[in-house]
């Protein structure tokens, strides 16, 4: 069963191929926002090189009236602005689709296809005729293709022009140039082609309670709302924009109005090892502290992560995953750090990990990560990826409950210590496996030695087996008890339940959900669970128990989620099978269906 490539009004995939460093990002952003303002569900995926200028780059826009915003399974219109990548760009258009290209230079015959329609617009010539200076011409060429698309797709020009007015309100000369460029493209297409194309837009009312935002910006905002004050980091793609966002929102919300000074401290560290140390130092003092990084950073931080685990220092690690191993493909997405984060560092360790699926959960889980880290006094991981972190997502507006009180965990105050006979750092007095901590500088009775070397429950150095075991066993139980505190899985069940279950994680969610709808429409009954936190809680076990065959869909080669489920639940090995996608692109419905359908035969599910 191959998926069908349908398209039509408010339902198509658009791909724009340009050269990076030429200003196409702002043109593409303008386009996405215009569609959003027309009330139509959209999403934007940026496929970019690890490079500053001169290499091929793509921007994919999916328009879908039903609200499916996973990566478009097909592209019906390709804007080919980069001759370097013509071959693959033209090949990628679905049969019956359209190619908008720069006809200033004649298209070589080798690229011609007879099952698609070529729409040639002399973008370069149009811009040379109207603008001076090569940089301006290059920049304006991008706006010209937005104008051409406005004509081809019936984009509301009033909205586009309104946006240009907002954007360039204080730069009249730029506004004028952009207006000229937009009309150049629009008028040329109107004059030379039948407009609009069958894939066109119609105004809807589906986005009024939504926003468009990246996961990294939302995560950064979550850090601000959680009350984080110390952020330490080392620049790395695709995590850098988390700290950019934190800086921006802190500048906006955290400047002391009287002194102009900062109610936060951001330290750009010398490397990820130091960034982890800074987070732990700040956590030791009682600040909410975090570091954004990617897989290579987690590898480097692992020594300190083990320290924070054993010494029980709250700390939050944002891993915006990219394609590994090693340097891998820094600008491509993957879910390859599941195992790494679950058990980071040498010796027996296990960590709390959260798996957001979109920017809304990035905001919410960022806040939750700090609560969990402080409640359980342990490193807590927020495992996002490049797709969630850096792409433009349509999400329901973020909400904030002003009655929220951060969970600081068991921290003894000066008054508590004054009244206490004695304080022992690692003594579990109430049986919940969490020992109270004290903060430096608060009270003389609270002092203790924080160490990564062997210690007993009183916080003293030890090389005694029993005393060592007592502490590490308590820590194990403490982390296990976090299973009930991490976000519960999201479960979608068909009426009466199915023998077949799908399981996925993180940003796979939207493609899996869309594929499941497709299967159900085709009469295949299938349940679905998205795991949202680790350690796995009982609901995860139950879902696995209740299904005869469970297909785990994830974006890494080695089926890390499946392995983690086998390690950490009672599920039988034969029951779990895998669909893995690890080429570095965001997941689409097509990838899921191709992977899942062969398993349907195992269950003898009839496939129409």
């Amino acid at each position, binding site marked *: 069963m191959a998926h069908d490539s349908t398209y039509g009004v408010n339902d198509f995939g658009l791909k724009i191929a340009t050269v990076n460093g030429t200003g196409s990002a702002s043109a593409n952003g303008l386009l996405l926002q215009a569609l959003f303002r027309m009330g139509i569900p959209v999403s934007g995926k940026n496929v970019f090189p690890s490079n500053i200028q001169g290499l091929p780059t793509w921007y994919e826009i999916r328009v879908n009236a039903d609200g499916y915003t996973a990566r478009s399974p097909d592209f019906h219109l390709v804007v080919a602005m980069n001759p370097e990548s013509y071959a693959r760009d033209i090949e990628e258009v679905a049969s019956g689709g359209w190619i908008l290209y720069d006809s200033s230079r004649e298209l070589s015959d080798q690229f011609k296809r007879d099952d698609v329609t070529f729409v040639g617009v002399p973008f370069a010539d149009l811009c040379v005729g109207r603008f001076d200076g090569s940089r301006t011409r290059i920049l304006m060429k991008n706006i010209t293709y937005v104008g051409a698309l406005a004509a081809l797709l019936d984009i509301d020009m009033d909205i586009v022009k309104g946006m240009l007015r907002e954007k360039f309100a204080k730069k009249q000369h730029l506004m004028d140039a952009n207006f000229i460029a937009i009309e150049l493209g629009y008028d040329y297409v109107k004059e030379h082609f039948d407009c609009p194309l069958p894939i066109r837009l119609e105004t809807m009312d589906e986005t009024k309670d939504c926003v468009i935002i990246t996961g990294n910006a939302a995560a950064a905002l979550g850090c*601000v709302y959680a009350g984080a*004050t110390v952020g330490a980091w080392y620049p790395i793609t695709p995590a850098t924009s988390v700290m950019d966002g934190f800086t921006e929102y802190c500048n906006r919300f955290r400047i002391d109005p009287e002194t102009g000074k900062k109610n936060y401290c951001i330290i750009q560290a*010398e490397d990820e090892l*130091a960034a982890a140390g800074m987070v732990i*130092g700040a956590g030791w003092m009682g600040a909410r502290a975090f570091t954004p990084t990617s897989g290579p950073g987690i590898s480097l931080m692992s020594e300190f992560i083990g320290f924070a685990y054993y010494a029980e220092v709250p700390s939050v690690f944002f891993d915006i995953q990219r394609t590994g191993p090693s340097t891998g493909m820094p600008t491509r997405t993957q879910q390859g750090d599941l195992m790494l984060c679950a058990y980071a560092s040498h010796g027996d360790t296990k960590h709390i990990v959260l798996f957001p699926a979109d920017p809304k959960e990035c905001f919410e889980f960022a806040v939750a990560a700090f609560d969990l880290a402080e409640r359980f006094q342990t490193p807590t991981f927020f495992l996002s990826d490049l797709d969630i972190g850096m792409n433009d997502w349509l999400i329901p507006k973020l909400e904030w409950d002003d009655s929220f009180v951060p969970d600081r965990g068991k921290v003894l105050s000066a008054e508590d210590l004054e009244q206490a006979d004695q304080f022992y750092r690692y003594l579990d007095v109430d049986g919940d496996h969490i020992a109270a901590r004290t903060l430096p500088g608060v009270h003389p009775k609270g002092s203790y030695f924080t160490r990564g070397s062997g210690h007993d429950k009183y916080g003293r150095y030890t090389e005694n087996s029993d005393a060592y075991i007592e502490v590490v066993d308590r820590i194990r139980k403490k982390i296990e008890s976090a299973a009930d505190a991490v976000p519960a899985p999201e479960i979608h069940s068909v009426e009466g339940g199915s023998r077949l279950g799908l399981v996925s994680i993180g940003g796979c969610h939207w493609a899996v959900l869309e594929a499941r709808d497709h299967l159900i429409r085709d009469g295949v009954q299938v349940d679905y669970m998205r795991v949202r936190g680790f350690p796995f809680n009982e609901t995860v076990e139950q879902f696995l128990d209740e299904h005869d065959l469970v297909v785990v869909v994830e974006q890494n080669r080695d089926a890390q989620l499946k392995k983690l489920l086998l390690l950490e639940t009672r599920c039988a090995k034969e029951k779990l099978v895998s669909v893995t996608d690890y080429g570095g692109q965001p997941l689409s419905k097509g990838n899921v269906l191709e992977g899942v359908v062969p398993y349907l035969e195992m269950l003898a599910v009839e496939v129409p």
Partner: protein
Amino acid sequence: MSYIKKPSARHPKLPKNDLGLTVRDYEGSMSTLCAGCGHDSITAALVQTFFELQVEPHRVAKLSGIGCSSKTPAYFLSESHGLNAVHGRMPAIAAGANAANRDLLYIGISGDGDSLSIGLGQFCHAIRRNVNMLYVLENNGVYGLTKGQFSASADIGTTSKRGEVNEQRPIDPVSLALSLGATFVARSFSGDKAQLVPILKAGLAHSGFAFIDVLSPCVTFNDHKGSTKSYAYTRDNMHEVIATDFVPLRAEIKTDYSDGSVQAVTMHDGSVVKLRKVTEGYDPTDRRRVLDYLGETSARGEIATGLLYLEEAGADMHGFEGTVDQPLVDVPYEVLCPGSAALEELQNEWR
């Protein structure tokens, strides 16, 4: 680190400071280092320093990395919070801790392995960042806990206890710190408490990264003939360039030093550091000349000691970052969270 608790009995007539604390209140647990270890003398100097400065022990945070040197925070200030980090990574912990709570006194104890090999990068960047802390490098030229390997501070031609000769150039932490722009650079000797205590006091009063390289002989692995870090060699070759007197905030300054033989520097907290020039023409505020001077003395095989360089006016990490004066850990959550109305307004820009 291993430790033995000290008996708490104390003499009733021990002198008390203004806080009502005796010198015993500034001690820690019993040292388990080798008898005669230079590090224990430094510990004693620290105890005296904190006692005389009348510091509240719980307002001090003491940190270390890994190694013999890094055991020593357990041996002073038992009422202070301590943190024994991973090897070579104490400076990062100190920077993060200081970022969160700028009101505590930070003291980091490290060694030549911890700071000059595995932790060289962090050491350098703590200097660049000018983290407000006292950083004591207990320098003995060997790895003690792993039984006598050369460290990066071992001089060329030094022989190990087993007879191997070191051929590699040493890293001199003092010249390194100076070249990186450190604002307080000193060298002393664990066997010279009279010199060390005023430097420690000045270091604690300094606003910024106060670095003290303390030659601290390893009696077990590096106190033999052929070592340039032995007690005998250090005593014979150390040469005090400048003598330090520390005048706490409350004390009256009586001496007149208008003759130019003494330079007085007022520290951030109002205390005064008086630098008496033992070597004529030495200027502890001229970084380039200090570096030249150190090069010349080192070529002669001399170990220049004293508070070699001091610059009090520079910004520390918080100055660079522009953080509020209040420790971040004390800023109430209500101030930190922008609330729902701000979120609504912000999101209008995402449409």
